């Protein structure tokens, strides 16, 4: 495999993981309206749980210590990571959804995100502080050549993306998806129709957590390490930007948003010429540029590049026919 091919395969892997990631937040925020600004925490949980499931038992004296260490082979490590994320997401959901109204949700979750980060960084006995996890073995990494491993991982990422896409696609086109949107549009009105908001929100949060756990798990398996540097709470805003740019409320919008923000804007901007030798300038420009794009989107295309489509029904066929034949009287307010 040449360097160009290697680069392309790496891009496909990262694009798939990012797409899974964005799909997760899109279910939570886009479809169900839960502005989860601690989304990155779910990713970190998925990554850590997957990492410690894949790693051998923690050495008693060493640089890296961790909880667990099961030496589980793929896919059990990833499934474990996803299960732990969903469980943690459900607990987090129960805490915030029972007590906090929608507008405080974002603030509460942001606070939880920063608090957790501080605790993890400053108490190394919990999750090994800044160092985190190292040398997490990837799927069949030791048995494959580097080129083959790269291709295998690419296939795994694409399969995972396909599975999560199918899952969310089916859910958001079902009456459950409709109920999620109803909660998003007007929670009180949905309650007045007998919808249980806590249950619906928890379901959306859990499905989003499943995707987050998967994305986090794949990330740690691919990169081989986990540390708090990679899970800064402000990373959530990047995912949120992708959701807004693509089209919140449906899976296709999430995938498009992920491709545009992560792969076109972030990856593409690496090809910009370095200005005056200031390497640190690039991330700053990226952030500014992304902020401008999000503002422009919210101004001109608030529902994204590919807005959520209207619900379609077999009834549409029937609806066409009486259009002309019926006398149409409307009530104007």
């Amino acid at each position, binding site marked *: 495999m040449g360097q160009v091919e290697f680069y392309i395969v790496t891009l496909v892997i990262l694009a798939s993981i990012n797409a899974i990631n964005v799909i997760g937040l899109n279910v939570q925020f886009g479809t169900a309206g839960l502005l989860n600004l601690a989304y990155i925490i779910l990713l970190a949980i998925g990554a850590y749980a997957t990492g410690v499931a894949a790693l051998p038992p923690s050495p008693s004296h060493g640089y890296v210590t961790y909880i667990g260490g099961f030496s589980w082979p793929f896919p059990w490590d990833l499934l474990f990571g996803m299960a732990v994320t969903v469980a943690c997401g459900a607990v987090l959901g129960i805490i915030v959804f029972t007590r906090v109204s929608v507008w405080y949700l974002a603030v509460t979750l942001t606070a939880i995100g920063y608090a957790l980060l501080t605790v993890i960084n400053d108490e190394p006995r919990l999750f090994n502080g800044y160092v985190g996890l190292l040398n997490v073995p990837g799927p069949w990494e030791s048995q494959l050549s580097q080129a083959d491993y790269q291709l295998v991982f690419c296939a795994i990422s694409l399969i995972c993306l396909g599975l999560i896409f199918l*899952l969310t696609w*089916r*859910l958001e086109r*079902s*009456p*459950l*998806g*409709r*109920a999620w*949107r*109803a909660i*998003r*549009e*007007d929670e*009180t*009105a*949905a*309650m*007045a*129709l*007998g*919808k*249980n*908001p806590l249950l*619906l929100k928890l*379901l959306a949060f859990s499905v989003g957590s499943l995707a987050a756990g998967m994305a986090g798990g794949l990330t740690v398996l691919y990169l081989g390490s986990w540390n708090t540097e990679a899970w800064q709470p402000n990373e959530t805003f990047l995912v949120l930007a992708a959701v807004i740019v693509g089209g919140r*409320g449906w899976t296709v919008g999430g995938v498009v948003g992920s491709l545009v923000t992560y792969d076109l804007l972030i990856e593409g901007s690496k090809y910009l010429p370095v200005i005056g030798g200031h390497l640190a300038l690039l991330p700053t420009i990226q952030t500014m540029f992304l902020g401008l794009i999000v503002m422009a989107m919210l101004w001109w295309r608030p529902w994204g590049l590919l807005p*959520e489509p*209207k*619900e379609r*029904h*077999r*009834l*549409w066929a*029937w*609806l066409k026919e*009486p*259009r002309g034949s*019926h*006398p*149409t*009287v*409307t*009530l*104007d*307010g």
Partner: protein
Amino acid sequence: MASGAGAAPLLRVEALAHAFGGVQAVNGVTFEVHRGEFLGLIGPNGAGKSTLLDCLSGQIRDYRGRVVFDGQDVSRWPLFRVARTGLVRSYQVSRVFDRLTVLSNLLTAPPRQRGERLPWALLGGWRAQERHHLELAQAALMDFELTPLARTYASEVSGGQRRLVELSRALLTGPKMLLLDEPFAGVSPANRRRLGDWLLRLNQEAGLTILMVEHRLEQVERLCSSALVMAAGRVIARDSMANLRRNPRVIEAYFGG
């Protein structure tokens, strides 16, 4: 009234009271509504009508007193559980799901939807039920002549049409009783009559029990067999509109100081 006499009332409210801070908005209200009744609820501004409706529907939950609906004590139940018993409300300013089409708004309403449960939503098996709900929604659209708007976002229809969407959505939950908070608000004078006819038909032909807050007294007179009058958080009278107009206490509450 006569139809429900003797039988257990559908809704019984006992000594219901609620205060906002120091203001006693509802102050010990007791009344019954019988099956098939179309009861008005009138009173000057600030009498506590909307607060009473909020308490009955579970929108406000920290009230004192008892609410028994259809033989079940629903006091202080949350809004969605009260709605599930068949006591369904509408709002003074219609609440629709803006970013859902008119048809999707209606389809949200039917209770016990299989497709809202995770396993069914995932594996399918909800389409037969959905087809049935589509038929119900289709009938509701026809009733209100909303069919041409079925595919329109609810945010894009007029104020009067929003009211119709909200009311037919409430009806699709299969309610035993409707709590209507000023259903004629936002509806043009020309169309109030049509809406009134429809409510009357619901009550008389479908036998639906209705409690309606309304300050347009001519509508209450036309539709309701009798009305409750509230003033300063209390029910001060319950009678037919013709008698209420002659009742000195009512006249004082409306026109006195």
